[in-house]
Structures are given as structure tokens and as C-alpha cells.
């Protein structure tokens, strides 16, 4: 493409400006602020569109109200075009005409025509600014080499700029040797955390070790507790044995083994029994002998001897005595009966006050007779009494009537009532007052009235009473007659009774007792008869008894008979009884003596038997006496007791006890062992408490470890940190890889275009350096140049000026190569400001060389540079015209 003319309607500071660019090389001169950059912007805006409102400063809206936009005429691929762009949407309104074919074209046709360029690419490839080259010159060698290496890519400067920015921002995240970058910090944190975790992780082993230890502790504790229990048992054993020891010792020495056979309990019991029996028998024998002696002293009395002499006679008499005694008893009974009968008779006599001897008992008919008399008498008496009572009654009635008649006639008024009434009036008059006085007066008047009028009230009854009294008077006369009759009858009856009494000699007795007397009379007569009979019997009995007693006179002295028969009989009976007793006694004494003698013999035999047995028993034990036996037995008993105690002791002692006692030898030894055991026990107890403490510590630690979430927290923190680090790593890597990617792309592109670029660049470099260098070599690592004399230099070895010249040569070579593909004007905006005169000349010379294939528009503010171009090639922006 060759831009022929620029016509600006209005753009930035330009308005209505036309610039002719028909030469291949154009030098546009202008001071600073002359609008060089604006002109570059105008050209690119015309081709690629106005900047949008978003990029306000890139819009270059005209300040003076001219129409925004302008025209461009250019030739491209052997065709001439006319382009007009004014204000409008999407980069402005475009009018395009192909002047060669005279056809109107669209905006899209323009884009098509410019393919594959856009504004940015155009800038990157075809535009050189002051800043761009300047930046390169400020680079260090390394970066310069890098730039040079990557020069073959489109927009490599920008890309490199981006990579620089990215490098910077990546460096803010992480640097492998950094110290403050966040990722570095996090990694450090991570390392620290990992260390902590490693330590915390030991918790597990710690826990396991603790667990093992805890089990061991528990086991040891169990063992120690077992040992402690054993020790306690042992200690108790020793203490028990220490207490038992004296006893043990004593028994051990005393326990003598008796050689002789010990006396058995049975033998001892037998011997004791025998000994006792022997003693008893001895005692019995002595008693027996004394008894016999006593028994032998019994003899008969004098009376007994008399009895023995007259036994026949006495026994014969004695046989009668009971009959005599009966007689005597009958005599006594009769006597008693006699007394009784006498008393009875006496009693009856006394009762009746006279002797009943002459009276006879009334026969029944006589009794009937007298009874009838009595009844008649009684009947009459009752009749008379009743008549007398009746008459008395009548008498009383009559008297009463008569009195009543007397009272009625004798009294007129009733003076008592009259006086009482007057009294009341007086009292009322003087003692009372008011209403009471009036009432009292009234009552008094009434009472006095009654006294005055009473006789008048009763006078009517008089005549009735008089008739009654006449009737009663006759009645009374009748009564008197009847009574007289009855009295006569009674007198007759009494005479009859008196006559009867005389007949039967009962005058001495009251008639009413006559009948009762009959019983007693019968009794009296019976008793008199009995008295006579008894008296007769008594006489007979006395005779018989006296006869009997007379026969006993021969023993009168012995029996000392005398006194009453009764007494004599008693004496005889006593004598006989005594004799009988004595005879009996004598008989028994004799009998006893015989028995005693027999018993004595038996005892004697038994004694010898028992004594023999005892002696035999004793001889079994070679002992003479029971005393010795007894002593031996006691000894044996003691021995047995000792043996028993020993047995008891032995029973208390276990096998080990005995072993200990046997081994110990002395109590001191026992106590010493006991003390040792105590010491051991104490030690074990201490150990136990240590272990308990240890165990509880371990348990606490275990629990602490189990409940501690420190490790888990650390793990999670680590995971979180990992997440953070990973994220940051990704951020960093993204940048690094992006840098890498861009770089790689630039390298790739550069390497792809290297042959052409190097070919062009070598020529440019040669021109720029005044033919001092002839070859450029790209390696993977660096760029080398070969000097005229064949020496090879690394870029780093070059002077900075030469290195810059190399860059410029390569940069323009790139543009030339690209322009060969896409023919576009090359716009150089004061790119060589820092070049010295000579180099600037060389550079312009190079540009002119470049212009042979591409249009070159060189904008400069340096007036000196005007001399480097032909006059027709120069346009003065300030002047607005070609120089």
C-alpha cells in the first residue's frame, strides 16, 4: 500500500489540511506539539476506524468545529482507492471507491482489503514510536538479547511488556528465593505447621506407649497388690506364731514321753469303784459287828418272867378277857341308858310341874269326845264376839246421829267466821292502802257474812236424822238379847269340860293342854318300864365281872390289881399287851441277830473279793496301793492334758507354721523375720501408691490425648493451608505459564521468520555499523554477530550502542519481512532521537533502502534531519506545506 495524499477535515489540531505523500520516502518535520502523533493516529483511524467513545483521548475530535474525519487516497495491489471517513457509528462512516475500476466499495471491503491487519497489528508491525526504541535502549543486556530473540513475532514488544508485568505480578505472589511473598510465607507457615503436625503426630505413639505403659502399670499394680496381700498374710502368720511361740516352746520341752503304760480311764474308774467298795465294805463290817453286840444285850423283864412262869393260866384267862370287856362295855352302855331314861322322866315331870306317874293315857274315844267339846266351846265364843261387834257398831252410829242432832240445834251463828271477817276488815283498814285496802275490806266482809248465815243453810237435815235414830235404837235392843243367849251356852260348854277333866284326873292341867299331854304320857310310861329292866341287867353283869376278876388274884402283885373293876380290867389288858409286845420284841431281836450274823459273813466274803480284784488291778500297773495308783493316774492325766494342748496347738499350726517354727529356732528369729516382712510390706505399699499415682497420671494423659482435638485441628489447618497454597500456586503458575506461553509463541514466531529477517537484518546492521559486521547468528540461547574480521561476538559482548543497532536492524528487518507479505506504509515516529548524527544518517539511509519495497513515512522533530532527505521528500507540519 502506498498512501498518496492525506486530507484532514478535522482531526485533533488539524483541520482542512492536505499532505502529499506520493513519494516512497517522506520526511514529515514538526516541532514538538506539531501533531506528529495525531497524524499517525489519523492515518490509522482512517484505515481501521475511529476510536470509540470509551477511548476518549484516542478520538481526536477536532477542537474547532470542523467536520470530524478526512480523506485518504492510496494505491494498493495496482489499484487506486479513495477513502473518506467521517463521524459515524462503529468507527465512523466510510466511503470507499476503487478509482481504478471506479466502483464504490463498502466498509467491509476495506476490512477485507486490509486483512489480516487490524489497528493493533498495524501498530505493532508498521509503526515505530520514540518510546518503543527508547525502551529497548534502556534494557539490560539480558533483556535486550531476549528482545532481539523475540523480534520475529508480531507485537513482541507489547507481549514482552505483558510478560514483564506478569513476571512482576507473579513475583508478588511467589519467588523461589523470596521471603515476603504470600506464597513463600504460606509455605513457611506450612513448613512450621508440618513440623507441629509431626510433633503432634507423635501423640499417637505417645498414646500407644502410654497405653502399653498403662497396661504394664496395671499389671505391676496387680502383682504388687498380690504380693502385698501375700506379705500381709505372711506377716499375720508370723505375728500369730510369735504369740504362739512361748506356748510352743513350753510344750516342746515338756512333752515327755511316758514309758509306762498310762492308766486307762476305764481302769481308773474300775480301781476307784473297787477302792470305794472296799472302804464301804469295811465300814459296813464294823457297823455290823457293833449291831450284833447290841443285839446280843436283849433280856426278858420280871413281869415277862412271871408271865413265862404262869403262861398257861394267864393265856387261858387272857382268852376270856375280851368277853369280860364286852360285858363291861354293856354295863357301861346300860348305865348310860339308865341315866338317859332318868333324865327323860325328870324332864317330863319338870315340864308339867308335877309327877305324871298317876296319869293314864286317854283312849281314842275319849280323845274324840274332848275334841268335840273344845270345838263347840270355840264356835260359841266366835259367835258371841261377832254379835258383840255388831252391837257396838250400831251403838256408834246411833251416838253419831245423836251428836249431829245436838250440834244443829245448839248453834245460831258461826262466831269463828264472824270474828275472822271483822279482823280482816280491820287489818285492811289500818294496815293496807289503795286497791289492797278495798280488796281486803271486801274479803273481810264476805268471811263475816258466811259466819252469820251458816245455820240457815244446814237446818233442813234435822228430821231425817231423827227417824234413823229410832230405827237404830230397836236394833240395839235385839243385839243385847242375842248376846245374853250366847253367854248362857258358853257357860254350859265350860261345865261339860270341867266335868271331863275331873273324871280323868286332869284338873291340874289347863284343858287346852289335855290332848297334847297324851303323847308325853305314853313316853313316860315306856321310860319307866325300860328303867326297871336296865337296873336288873346291871346287877347280873356286875356279878359276872367280879367272878372273873377274882380268878386273877394270883398275879395281883405283878399286875398291881386294885381299884374299880374297870381299872383292874384295864391293868390286866395292859399287862397282857405289854407281854405280847415284849414277847414279840424278844422274838424280833433274836431274828435280827441271826440276820446280822449272816450279813456279816456275806460282807466279809464280798470284801475279800473286791480287795482281791483291786490288788490284781493295781498289780497290773505294778503298784502296791491305790494311793500310788491314784498318784500315777493324776500324772498320766497331766501328761494327757499336755498332749491334748499340744494337739490343739498342732491343730492351729499349718504345715508351713510348723516348718517356720522348726526353722526359726527362737522367738527373736521369728520377730526378726517379721520385721523384715514389715519392711518389705512397707516397701510394697510405697510401690503400690507410686503405681497408683502413675496409673492415674497415665489415665489422665491418655484421656487428655484422646480428648485433645489439637492434632485433628492441625490436620484440618494443614488441609486448609494446602488449599490456600494450591490456589496461590495456581495463580502464580497461571501467570508463569502465561509468560511462558507468550514467550514461547514469540520465540516460535521469531524462529519461523528468522531466515528472512536475518538476511535483511545483516544488510541493515552492516549499513548501520558502517560495514563492521557481516553476519548475525541466532542460537537457542543467544544471538551472535560475526565481525568483518571473522570474530564472533555474543550480543552480551557488544557495546550497548552496537547492541541497539543490532536491535534496530532486526526490528526494521522484521517490518520489511512483514511488509513483503502485507505491503503497508512504515511509519517511523522520531524513533532515532537518541542516535548520534552519524547513526541517524545511517538509519535514514537504511529507511531509504527500506522505502524501495515499502512506503516509509518518517516523522521527526529534529531539524537537522531535514538535510538527510531530498527537498521533495520533506513536509513541514508547522508550515503546513512541503519545504
Amino acid at each position: 500500500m502506498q498512501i498518496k495524499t492525506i486530507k484532514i477535515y478535522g482531526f485533533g489540531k488539524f483541520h482542512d489540511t492536505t499532505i502529499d505523500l506520493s513519494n516512497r520516502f517522506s520526511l514529515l518535520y514538526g516541532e514538538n506539539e506539531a501533531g506528529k502523533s495525531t497524524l499517525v493516529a489519523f492515518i490509522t483511524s482512517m484505515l481501521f476506524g475511529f476510536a470509540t467513545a470509551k477511548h476518549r483521548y484516542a478520538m481526536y475530535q477536532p477542537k474547532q468545529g470542523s467536520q470530524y474525519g478526512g480523506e485518504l487516497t492510496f494505491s494498493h495491489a495496482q489499484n487506486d482507492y479513495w477513502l473518506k471517513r467521517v463521524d459515524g457509528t462503529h468507527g465512523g462512516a466510510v466511503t470507499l471507491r476503487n478509482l481504478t475500476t471506479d466502483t464504490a466499495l463498502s466498509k467491509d471491503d476495506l476490512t477485507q482489503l486490509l486483512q489480516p491487519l487490524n489497528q493493533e497489528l498495524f501498530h505493532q508491525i508498521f509503526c515505530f514510536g520514540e518510546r518503543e526504541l527508547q525502551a529497548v535502549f534502556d534494557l539490560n543486556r539480558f533483556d535486550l538479547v531476549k528482545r532481539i530473540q523475540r523480534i520475529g513475532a508480531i507485537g513482541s514488544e507489547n507481549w514482552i511488556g505483558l510478560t514483564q508485568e506478569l513476571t512482576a505480578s507473579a513475583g508478588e505472589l511467589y519467588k523461589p528465593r523470596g521471603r515476603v511473598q504470600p506464597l513463600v510465607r504460606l509455605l513457611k507457615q506450612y513448613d512450621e505447621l508440618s513440623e507441629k503436625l509431626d510433633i503432634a503426630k507423635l501423640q499417637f505413639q505417645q498414646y500407644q506407649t502410654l497405653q502399653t505403659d498403662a497396661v504394664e502399670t496395671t499389671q505391676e499394680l496387680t502383682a504388687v497388690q498380690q504380693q502385698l496381700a501375700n506379705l500381709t498374710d505372711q506377716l499375720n502368720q508370723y505375728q500369730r506364731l510369735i504369740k504362739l511361740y512361748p506356748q510352743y516352746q513350753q510344750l516342746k520341752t515338756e512333752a515327755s514321753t511316758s514309758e509306762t503304760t498310762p492308766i486307762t480311764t476305764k481302769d481308773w474308774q474300775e480301781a476307784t469303784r473297787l477302792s470305794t467298795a472296799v472302804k464301804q465294805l469295811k465300814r459296813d463290817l464294823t457297823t455290823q459287828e457293833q449291831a450284833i453286840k447290841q443285839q446280843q444285850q436283849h433280856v426278858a423283864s420280871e413281869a415277862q418272867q412271871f408271865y413265862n412262869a404262869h403262861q398257861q393260866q394267864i393265856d387261858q384267862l387272857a382268852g376270856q378277857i375280851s368277853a369280860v370287856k364286852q360285858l363291861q362295855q354293856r354295863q357301861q352302855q346300860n348305865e348310860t341308858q339308865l341315866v338317859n331314861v332318868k333324865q327323860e322322866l325328870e324332864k317330863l315331870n319338870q315340864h308339867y310341874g308335877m309327877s305324871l306317874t298317876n296319869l293314864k293315857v286317854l283312849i281314842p274315844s275319849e280323845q274324840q269326845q274332848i275334841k268335840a267339846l273344845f270345838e263347840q266351846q270355840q264356835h260359841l265364843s266366835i259367835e258371841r264376839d261377832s254379835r258383840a261387834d255388831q252391837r257396838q257398831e250400831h251403838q256408834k252410829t246411833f251416838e253419831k246421829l245423836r251428836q249431829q242432832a245436838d250440834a244443829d240445834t245448839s248453834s245460831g251463828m258461826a262466831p269463828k267466821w264472824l270474828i275472822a271477817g271483822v279482823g280482816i276488815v280491820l287489818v285492811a283498814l289500818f294496815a293496807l292502802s289503795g286497791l289492797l285496802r278495798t280488796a281486803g275490806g271486801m274479803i273481810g266482809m264476805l268471811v263475816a257474812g258466811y259466819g252469820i248465815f251458816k245455820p240457815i243453810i244446814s237446818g233442813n237435815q234435822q228430821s231425817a236424822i231423827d227417824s234413823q235414830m229410832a230405827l237404830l235404837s230397836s236394833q240395839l235392843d235385839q243385839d243385847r238379847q242375842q248376846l245374853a243367849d250366847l253367854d248362857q251356852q258358853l257357860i254350859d260348854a265350860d261345865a261339860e269340860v270341867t266335868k271331863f277333866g275331873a273324871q280323868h284326873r286332869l284338873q291340874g292341867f289347863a284343858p287346852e293342854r289335855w290332848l297334847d299331854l297324851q303323847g308325853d304320857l305314853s313316853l313316860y310310861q315306856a321310860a319307866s318300864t325300860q328303867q326297871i329292866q336296865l337296873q336288873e341287867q346291871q346287877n347280873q353283869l356286875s356279878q359276872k365281872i367280879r367272878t372273873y376278876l377274882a380268878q386273877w388274884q394270883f398275879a395281883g402283885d405283878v399286875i398291881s390289881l386294885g381299884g374299880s373293876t374297870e381299872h383292874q380290867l384295864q391293868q390286866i389288858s395292859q399287862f397282857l399287851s405289854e407281854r405280847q409286845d415284849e414277847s414279840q420284841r424278844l422274838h424280833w431281836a433274836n431274828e435280827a441277830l441271826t440276820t446280822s450274823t449272816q450279813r456279816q459273813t456275806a460282807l466279809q466274803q464280798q470284801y475279800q473279793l473286791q480287795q482281791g480284784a483291786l490288788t490284781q488291778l493295781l498289780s497290773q500297773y505294778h503298784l502296791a496301793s491305790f494311793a500310788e495308783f491314784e498318784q500315777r493316774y493324776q500324772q498320766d492325766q497331766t501328761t494327757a492334758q499336755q498332749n491334748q494342748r499340744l494337739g490343739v496347738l498342732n491343730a492351729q499350726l499349718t504345715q508351713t507354721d510348723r516348718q517356720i517354727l522348726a526353722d526359726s529356732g527362737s522367738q527373736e528369729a521369728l520377730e526378726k523375720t517379721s520385721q523384715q516382712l514389715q519392711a518389705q510390706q512397707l516397701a510394697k505399699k510405697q510401690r503400690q501408691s507410686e503405681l497408683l499415682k502413675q496409673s492415674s497420671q497415665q489415665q489422665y494423659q491418655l484421656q487428655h490425648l484422646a480428648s485433645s482435638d489439637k492434632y485433628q485441628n492441625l490436620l484440618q489447618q494443614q488441609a486448609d493451608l494446602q488449599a490456600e497454597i494450591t490456589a496461590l500456586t495456581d495463580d502464580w503458575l497461571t501467570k508463569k505459564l502465561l509468560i511462558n506461553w507468550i514467550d514461547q509463541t514469540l520465540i516460535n514466531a521469531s524462529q519461523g521468520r528468522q531466515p528472512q529477517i536475518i538476511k535483511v537484518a545483516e544488510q541493515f546492521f552492516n549499513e548501520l555499523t558502517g560495514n563492521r559486521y557481516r553476519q548475525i547468528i541466532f542460537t537457542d540461547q543467544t544471538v551472535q554477530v560475526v565481525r568483518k574480521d571473522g570474530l564472533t561476538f555474543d550480543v552480551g559482548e557488544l557495546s550497548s550502542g552496537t547492541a541497539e543497532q543490532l536491535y534496530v536492524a532486526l526490528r526494521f528487518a522484521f517490518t520489511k519481512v512483514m511488509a513483503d507479505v502485507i505491503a503497508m506504509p512504515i511509519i517511523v515516529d522520531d524513533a532515532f532521537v537518541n542516535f548520534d548524527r552519524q547513526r541517524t544518517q545511517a538509519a535514514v539511509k537504511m529507511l531509504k533502502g527500506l522505502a524501495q519495497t515499502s512506503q516509509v513515512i518518517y516523522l521527526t522533530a529534529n531539524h537537522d534531519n531535514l538535510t538527510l532527505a531530498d527537498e521533495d521528500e520533506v513536509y513541514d507540519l508547522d508550515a503546513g506545506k512541503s519545504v
Partner: protein
Amino acid sequence: MKFIHAADLHLDSPFEGLQRLPKALWQQIHQAPFNATKKMITDAIEQKVDFVLLVGDLFDRETQSVQAQVFLNEQLQRLCDADIAVFVSFGNHDYLTGDQQLALPEGVSVFGSEVTTKQLTTADHTQVAINGFSYADRWLAEDVIPQFPKCGTADFQIGMLHGAVKQGDNNHYAPFTVSELTGIHYDYWALGHIHKPSVLAEQPPVIYAGTIQGRHKLEAGQHGYQLVSSRGQRLTRQFVPADQVRWSSLTLTVDEDTTDASLIDAVQTALTQRQSTVFELIELRLNGIEKLSASMLSRLNDRTWLERLDQTQKKTYSKAQAWIYEVNVQPTDQPVQYAQLDAAYWQRAQAKVFTPDNVELTAGKLMQYPFIADHLRDPKTTANLTDRAKNELLAQSRLEEENDADQND
């Protein structure tokens, strides 16, 4: 008969991918695996299950947290106290070596390194035979399925297997094929190792219980355990969520009108509408960034916006029951603006630069940290870094464009 099948408790494993959480939330999340486990144990007791199967990876033997293991023991003791049988087989993380591990409570049946069968008679007199084994090492390349015995006489046969389906040539975790498992006619295969709850086969059930609590963004969605009960000869199973915190994502689209504040508002509104019963940890994904202003985009890229969001979140998270822990800007489909003349060079360079090797090379010393190395060796990281570089380039070129225009004079 009723039982619980759980696996991969990973009690001592921390949550990954979280940073700068408020203290209280941090605590809440930190307690989540413990509370999830507690819930499962409590459910087991309340449901009166006959036994509980724990198919490996209860904890990480590399981590060795006393607290976690003691906690597990306490919880297992609760089951023992409730007369619930517990069967444990250890996996690749808690492999059985006899040391470096606290003894489980007495009464917990632990499978040895050989496949063995444990018999159990449940309260309803059901005979159950449980077959399983524990890892003796970190890896188990061998296929152990042939060692599992054929069906015995028990009413129910259950297999416990901590492993992964055979894939390719490198199989380190008891590799198996589903047909191998279904070939042994067990009534239930209780699997562990894969943290996402999943069903490999329905008849017979071949089930991954999944981890009880998701711990990073890849363990998103519900987590819990399987509650299995018998209906006659059939087993019915039910997934019971037990997780206390749930990982999730939220996608929002931004445009040229989006501002810092409006985006925060949009996020808050979206969170309020979710109404999740479980606290959610949310990855925010933003679409349409090519329309965003350059400055907004760069604030997203350099996380200044996230910090502003955090300030708001701190006040609202407990009400919203959610926390945005990460913002990912989805890469745009629009090409990066570089010269078409150089497009080939860019692409060639991209292919050369964004390789795991170069990522490692670039990371340099950082690779010393295993967790960084692991992260960077993940192919996804490279892809992610590529996307981010493009975003950055976009943002940078946008900025440059604006700056250039502003400065041009």
C-alpha cells in the same frame, strides 16, 4: 433382620479445598465427620439393627489421630453396649498390621487378611454368614473374589469387599468385576473404597455405601449409609443420608452489566432459594465472562471479588446454610485476541507450554511439597491452568487495550 452398611468413614481425614473459613463454620465442618458417624450409630441403636458392617477406611493409618480412633472406639462401644454386632474389615487406608493402631473395643469382629466367614444369629433367629477380609498392606493388586466361599446354609450371605472395579492394567485395590461378584450368589455385597454412594448391581445388590461425609469438591452430593432389612427372603435397602455438610455447586451467568455488588446479590438470592436441609459448601461457577468488563474480570481472577463476597457471607452463611468456598470462572469459547499471523505459533506454544511436565518444571521448588506435586500432576490441573491462562490473557489484553487507548497521545 436389619443391618447397616457403611464404609470409608475416614474420621481423621481433613476437609480439602477450604480456606479462610469463619472460625465457627470451621468448627462446624471440622466436627461433621464425627457428627455424621454419631448419627449413624444413634440410628443403628434406634433402629435396633442386628449388626453394622464397616467396610474399610475407617481412618487413615498415615494420619494416626488419637482423637479419631478413640472417638471411633467410643462409638463402636455404644453399639456393643446396645448388643449390636459390629463387623469391621480394614481397607487400604487403615490396613491391618497390628501396630500403629488402637485396639477396637472387645466385641467388634475384625476380619483378618484372609477371607473368612463369620456367622451370626440375629434376634429373629436368622442365620447370617458374613464373608470378608482386611488389607494387610496399602495395596492389594490381587483379585480376592475367588477366595470368597460359595453360599453356605445360612439364611443370608453377605460379602464385605473394600476395592475397586478392575480398570486397565494398574489395579491396586482388590480389583474385581461386577459379574464376578454376582457369580457368587450372595444376598448382598457391601462394598467400600469408592466414596460416592453407588449401585453396581441391583440383583443381587452390589453397593458402595460411599463415605459417610464428603470431604472435598469431588465428593459432592448426599453421603450416608445403607440401611438394609429383610422382608422374608428378600433384602430391601434404603440410603440414609448422615452427612452434616454437603458439597455442591452453583452456576451463574454474568454479562456486561454485572457489577461486584450485583453479582453478590445474585449469589445470595440463589443461595436463599436452595433451602437445603444440610449445610452446603458451594463452588460458584461463572459463565459468560467474555462479556464482563476487564476490571471486573480481573477482580474475579485475582480474587478480590471473592474476598468481598466473603465479607458478606460471614454475615449470612448461617441463615443461608451455605458457604461459597471457591469461584471458578468458566473459560470462554471466544479465541484469545492474538494476531492471526501468529496463531499457529500461539497454538504450538500452548501445546508445548501447557503440559504436565512443563507445569512441573515451572513449579520447580514447589514440587518439593508432595501435596503441591500431587495437585500439579493431576491432568485436570493443567487443563485448569490453561483455562485460567487464557482468562488472564483475555483480561490482560482487554486491560491493555483500554490502557493503550487511554494513554495514546
